[in-house]
């Protein structure tokens, strides 16, 4: 159906038929730069990807013709430039040439291609998350601005629910690998787009991770954004096969595949961290402890996940390499056999997909607030044990090894063997009191109607179901507050709220269907704590309920707050205060703090994605200069 497709390598690892039966479109195939325009000078780095088809908003132009605008269910591309106060016309992704022709050709010169690429890459992130989570994402439509401002920056801006991409002119004296005075567009770097979009999706899954309550929270945001961006490269088989051929199957050799955002160097230390993930440099177990800046600290987590990926991939291909080398395991000089490359590519992309899916699925096992890298390790181990109990390629063991080697030790886990890294089983009293039977019926009733076309009658039913689910959960939490590490519920001083719930359906390796419910509770004491730089101390807990309503895991972040006043000696309170102090002494604004630097905004200002990405840029250049 798509002419022009032969010219472009397609994303076959994740492709689905473009057309379903009866001519209904299942996917849009759109061209993008696999990395960025600079690498995109080579044809193999201009590729097509498929994103699930959705109906776009329509508009009528002056001549009365109806056409689409790139605004779908979750993403709306609006091409406004706030620096010049102007805008650009929007691409019609439903025009026959684009719909059936695979989209506009990659070029820096046409803003409509920029919009197309942004739409394709952001929706690809969405579909990656939806596939791994096994459910649809649902959030307020994001406004995406391809050319929002001038400057070497791009960010997710939560207060306006937007993704803003900057553009700038390459420096005349120091253009790096670009031409002097050449326009550079951050929206054409697929890594940057994936990174920023991932921030937005994480924000949807765990909105309270915008509260920097410990040094890991923003670092986790950054690390996940980078992990999704890097693993995305493994879904471009043409690119992957080349890298495997070039590196003789040893994916740990540095190459474009492992470098994030080459053109923009968006992520500091990213490539250095990856090199150490691959064992080229010694792993430094003190790094985690010492590193403070969120991108740098995040790169420790990125490197842990990648080390586990490399180890697992190596195990998986060991037999192939033995076969191909007559048992010696030593690949000689010269090109690898194309069949071998093919098989290695498959194994690499499969392993990558598995690791990425696991990282995403782990979200269901994360606390609603105050996440740490240790929590993430426990979530990974729990999620994977649930789905793949036998762990054939030691992925789980490799993850645990890699985290521990980097000094990431989960708090509260008694020992470091796998089973004690699982999240704790709930207290007896909780297990003995499952949710009311009506719960799962109401929950699935609600979810079934959420995605269908809702008629009026059903809408009422949906509201009813939702209210029922909430009140069953709320009553249960109130009854068991102390057993979950929460303070007793008090509507005025220390209210417990149901923060979110959804079902989790998965198929295990053994083919068994798992249906569970993931529920997040939040408790926010009334008293404000001025010394926390604007942070709100909270308690929270994520509970996983099995299909019969029995709680299976309780993932708590307790906080002592008798009568709604947080206890200053509470462990988490102490850590929060310590962290706020640590931030203050590093904050270059702080010397000048006067009335203009509102103490309630200190932590929010220090942790604005926009400013974080700006600050890091200086440091990154410093590193580049030093090399």
């Amino acid at each position, binding site marked *: 159906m798509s002419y022009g497709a032969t010219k472009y390598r397609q994303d076959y690892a994740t492709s689905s038929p473009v057309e379903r039966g009866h001519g209904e479109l299942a996917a849009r195939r759109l061209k993008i730069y696999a990395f960025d325009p600079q690498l995109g000078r080579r044809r193999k780095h201009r590729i097509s990807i498929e994103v699930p088809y959705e109906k776009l908003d329509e508009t009528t132009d002056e001549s009365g013709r109806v056409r689409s605008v790139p605004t779908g269910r979750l993403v709306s591309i609006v091409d406004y430039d706030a620096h010049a106060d102007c805008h650009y016309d929007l691409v019609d992704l439903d025009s026959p040439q684009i719909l059936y022709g695979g989209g506009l050709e990659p070029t820096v010169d046409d803003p409509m291609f920029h919009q197309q690429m942004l739409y394709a890459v952001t929706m690809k992130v969405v579909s990656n998350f939806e596939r791994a989570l096994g459910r649809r994402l649902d959030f307020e439509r994001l406004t995406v601005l391809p050319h929002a401002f001038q400057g070497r920056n791009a960010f997710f801006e939560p*207060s306006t629910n937007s993704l803003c991409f900057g553009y700038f002119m390459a420096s005349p004296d120091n253009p790096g690998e670009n031409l002097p005075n050449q326009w550079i567009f951050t929206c054409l770097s697929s890594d940057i787009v994936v990174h920023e979009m991932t921030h937005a999706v994480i924000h949807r899954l765990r909105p309270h991770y915008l509260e920097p309550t410990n040094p890991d929270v923003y670092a986790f945001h950054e690390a996940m954004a980078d992990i999704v961006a890097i693993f995305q490269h493994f879904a471009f088989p043409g690119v992957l096969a080349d890298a495997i051929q070039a590196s003789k199957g040893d994916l740990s050799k540095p190459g474009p595949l492992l470098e994030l955002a080459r053109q923009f160097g968006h992520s500091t230390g990213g490539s250095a961290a990856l090199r150490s993930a691959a064992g080229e440099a010694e792993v430094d177990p003190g790094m985690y402890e010492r590193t403070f800046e969120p991108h740098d600290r995040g790169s420790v987590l990125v490197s842990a996940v990648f080390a586990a990926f490399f180890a697992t991939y190596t195990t998986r291909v060991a037999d192939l390499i033995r076969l191909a080398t007559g048992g010696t395991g030593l690949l000689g000089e010269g090109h690898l056999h194309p069949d071998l490359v093919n098989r290695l590519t498959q194994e690499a992309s499969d392993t990558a997909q598995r690791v990425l899916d696991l990282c995403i699925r782990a979200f269901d096992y994360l606390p609603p607030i105050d996440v740490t890298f240790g929590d993430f390790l426990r979530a990974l181990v729990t999620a994977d044990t649930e789905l793949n109990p036998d762990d054939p390629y030691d992925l789980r063991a490799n993850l645990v090894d890699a985290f521990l080697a980097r000094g990431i030790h989960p708090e509260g886990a008694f020992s470091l063997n796998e089973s004690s890294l699982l999240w704790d089983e709930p207290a007896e009293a909780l297990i003995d009191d499952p949710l009311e039977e009506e719960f799962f019926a109401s929950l699935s009733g609600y979810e079934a109607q959420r995605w269908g076309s809702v008629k009026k009658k059903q809408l009422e039913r949906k509201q009813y179901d939702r209210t029922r689910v909430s009140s069953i959960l709320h009553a249960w939490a109130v009854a068991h507050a102390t057993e979950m590490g929460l303070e007793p519920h008090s509507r005025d001083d220390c209210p417990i709220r149901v923060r979110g719930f959804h079902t989790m359906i998965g198929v295990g390796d053994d083919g068994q269907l798992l249906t569970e419910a993931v529920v997040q509770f939040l408790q926010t004491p009334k008293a404000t704590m001025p010394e926390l730089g604007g942070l709100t101390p909270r308690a929270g807990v994520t509970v996983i309920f099995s299909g019969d309503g029995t709680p299976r895991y309780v993932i708590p972040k307790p906080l002592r707050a008798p009568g709604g006043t947080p206890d200053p000696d509470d462990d988490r309170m102490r850590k929060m205060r310590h962290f706020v102090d640590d931030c203050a002494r590093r904050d270059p604004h702080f010397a000048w703090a006067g009335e203009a630097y509102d103490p309630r905004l200190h932590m929010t200002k220090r942790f604005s994605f926009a400013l974080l990405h700006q600050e890091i840029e200086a440091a990154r250049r410093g590193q580049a200069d030093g090399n």
Partner: protein
Amino acid sequence: MATEPIGVSMYNVGFGDCFLLRFPTPDRERRVLIDCGSIKRGVPAGTDAIVERLIEDVTDDGVARIDVVVATHRHKDHVSGFDNEAWRDVVVDEVWLPWIENPSDARAQQILHEMASFALSLQAEAASLRGLSEAERQLVDHVIENTMSLNDGQRLDLSNDAAMATLHRGFSGGAGGAERRFLSRSPDPLDSKALPGVIVHRLGPSRDEAVIRDMNPPSDESFLRAAPGGGTDPGALLPFPSTMGPPSGLPSGLIGRLERMSMESTVLGAVALEKAVNNTSLMLAFEVGEAVLFFPGDAQWGAWAVNLEDERTRQLLKRTTFYKVGHHGSHNATPRTFVDEVLNESHPASIVAAASVTTHGRFTEIPKAELLRELEHKIGQHRVIRSDDPPAVGSEGVSVMSGADRVPLRIDFEVPVR
């Protein structure tokens, strides 16, 4: 070894630093001048008057002589006093500067160049921005002035060039003139003929890549230009043909938010530049007998952290008997761990801290009252001496010399060596 105390004179330059140390040695007194600058217009006595006073203070038999001149970093409030003809006749043996000033070090020159060019962009950026609050404007203006300094309001003096020219090429001296030495952090004491009997420890600036990171200014491209017409090219060079004004479907509030971020990005650029320059500071400790005089310049967290984490320097700093309060008493130029865990920990017989400060514009947190209180708490009442508010005449070991208008001109005190 001499047993007489070391004399310290703190000149009241307003918002800036100017310290003269006198080390008694058997043959004669050795003098070290650490910084001479001020940023506040209307310094109590005027910078020129201070320089005149200072030169008179080091003149014997008609010859003005300073053994070592130290410039910690090229901020106006530390070097502006050197932009003065009078220095030409002062005999100086050695001039100590941070390695970043070394003209034959390409890396150093590149960083300096980036700082200067970023200051220029910052100035252009700020000039084109409407909507900065009064406090933000003052802060940005301060940073620009401190980095560039406009001479006579006319000639653009990039990064204090006139003052730096004196430091690099001026002064009188022996046959070859004053010797220039570019110092960096090192475990070994500095070997200097100019200061016999004085152990000089170099605590900063480091050449370690991880620390140099904190000396890098942001780049021009890092500004977030989103205020309509803002930025350095109001003619707004655009990549594509466009239609003026916002499109339909733009959520309300987004333009305002982007504009606000553009302001914040400029302010962040300003504080980042200030921090970068501060972190080039020469950090020195002078040790004689029991005395350890610690001058950290304006070093901020990154440069401090290295010294607090290194057991050798940490032990040395525990023996501090004189502390020049960093960056005019601002909060993050004196780490809390230094005050809580290091300062006065070896209980020297006598300890004093001197803060060269004055209130400046809207910067109500400089000096940080809380920090000065904590220092007092740690080292004792009346042991923290403020240049703008010296102790009453007659209090132990401190004497104040006032100018005609009774404004303090120079505060003298002694640091015992045993």
